[in-house]
């Protein structure tokens, strides 16, 4: 971060999701707001509202009449006049509103449907095994750096038909786009240049040498007989890289972080791997990595909150997932929970397009990790650090392996 910010003293009236206190542990703050607000406000970022109840997060996610997805990452500026307008936006379908949204989304659904994604299981498992093998016999490994971060990168590169070696590059792109929210607009544009150059080159290469991959699929796709506009293909490619990497990296990391601190849960999963799918849903609920944003379309009164045109809404799926009015024992992690309507992948028309892929990655990553390491713990609890911004997960996660199989 380039600018020093004033620390938040009261999250109810001066909310900031990049404040160190929130980054370190947001859950007690959410709980406090739920009792006092339950929609927090802030003048930061030009005005922002922060619902923390499931019912409000759900209502806003489903209300595309009053809220636009034109920008879903909160920054100091609003999308400028020259940014592609709603309903298409810079990165369809996430930045699109109805009616265009359904068209842009439908186009890609089949490519991310279970039938297509399940075919990648072998690739994902091999990748996990190779990463584990590369750890050798080290006693302490970093599960975020040596393991979790490589899995989504490997899979999305495979799907888009891009070289596996470009992984580091993708992560730097994601960083530029997601974590640079506080850079002034001009600096953001400058920082974005290498990303643009990379994808323009990739698209040119694929135009010359079409392949059986998602990049070629997008280049050849059409809407009502018309090829997609270049800006649409480009925006969607970037969206897939951005939306797929930090998110799943975080979800895998948080799951391992939990197991490292809860040996009884780890032992249960080692004894009975058939519990892994329900454990994954519970980790997604309790440690939901993704918070999205909306912009208020026109001045609008929501439950007594005087929302102004272009105010931000910070759409806290993680907060919805911990709402005790919606979940029993909301703050406890119960790996065999049988009723779990969590919102980690969003609610309504923008439901995560990549959820089948994310689940496959989490499933193979956890299965392989606990099969190889049936006992492990945090090597340095105070050395764990979490990302800042709208995607939350461990970025440094030192793990001591206590038993190898």
């Amino acid at each position: 971060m380039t600018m020093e910010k004033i620390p938040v003293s009261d999250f109810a009236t001066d909310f900031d999701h990049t404040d160190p206190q929130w980054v370190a542990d947001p859950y007690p703050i959410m709980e406090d707001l739920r009792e006092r607000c339950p929609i927090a406000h802030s003048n930061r970022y030009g005005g922002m509202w922060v619902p923390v109840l499931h019912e409000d997060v759900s209502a806003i996610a489903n209300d595309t009449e009053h809220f636009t997805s034109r920008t879903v990452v909160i920054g100091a500026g609003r999308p400028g006049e020259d940014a592609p307008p709603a309903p298409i936006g810079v990165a369809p379908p996430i930045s699109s509103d109805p009616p265009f949204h359904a068209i842009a989304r439908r186009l890609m659904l089949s490519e991310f449907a279970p039938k297509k994604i399940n075919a990648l299981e072998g690739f994902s498992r091999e990748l996990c095994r190779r990463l584990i093998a590369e750890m050798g016999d080290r006693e302490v490994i970093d599960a975020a750096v040596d393991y979790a971060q490589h899995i989504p990168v490997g899979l999305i590169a495979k799907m888009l038909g891009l070289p596996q070696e470009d992984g580091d590059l993708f992560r730097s792109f994601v960083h530029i786009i997601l974590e640079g929210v506080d850079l002034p607009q001009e600096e953001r544009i400058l920082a974005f240049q290498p990303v643009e150059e990379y994808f323009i080159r990739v698209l040119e290469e694929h135009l010359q040498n079409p392949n059986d991959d998602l990049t070629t699929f997008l280049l050849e796709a059409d809407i009502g007989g018309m090829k997609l506009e270049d800006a649409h293909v480009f925006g969607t490619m970037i969206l897939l890289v951005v939306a797929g990497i930090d998110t799943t990296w975080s979800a895998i990391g948080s799951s391992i972080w939990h197991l490292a601190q809860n040996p009884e849960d780890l032992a249960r999963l080692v004894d009975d791997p058939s519990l892994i799918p329900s454990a994954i849903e519970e980790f997604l609920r309790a440690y939901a990595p993704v918070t999205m944003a909306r912009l208020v379309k026109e001045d609008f009164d929501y439950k007594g909150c005087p929302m102004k045109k272009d105010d931000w809404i910070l759409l806290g799926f993680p907060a919805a997932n911990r709402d005790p009015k919606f979940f029993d024992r909301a703050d406890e992690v119960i790996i065999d929970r049988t009723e779990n309507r969590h919102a980690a992948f969003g609610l309504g028309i923008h439901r995560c397009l990549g959820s089948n892929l994310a689940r496959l990655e989490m499933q193979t990553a956890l299965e392989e990790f606990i099969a190889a390491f049936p006992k492990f713990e945090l090597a340095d609890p105070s050395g764990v650090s979490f990302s800042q911004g709208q995607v939350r997960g461990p970025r440094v996660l030192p793990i001591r392996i206590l038993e190898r199989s």
Partner: protein
Amino acid sequence: MKIKLDLDKCQGHGRCYSLSPDLFDSDDLGNAVLLVTGELSDDQVAQATLAANNCPEYAIEVIA
């Protein structure tokens, strides 16, 4: 008891066909497809309830 699936609400979260594959399948877009019609057996009621309890969009109901 019967299953009611509201495809207007379904967003393809895929919880139903993962949890209760005997009752639900996915179409080519990942949305739910109902595999049974009519009265459910006791075992099917349990499976249908599990699916309903995990659908984030409340698209599934088990009704009398």
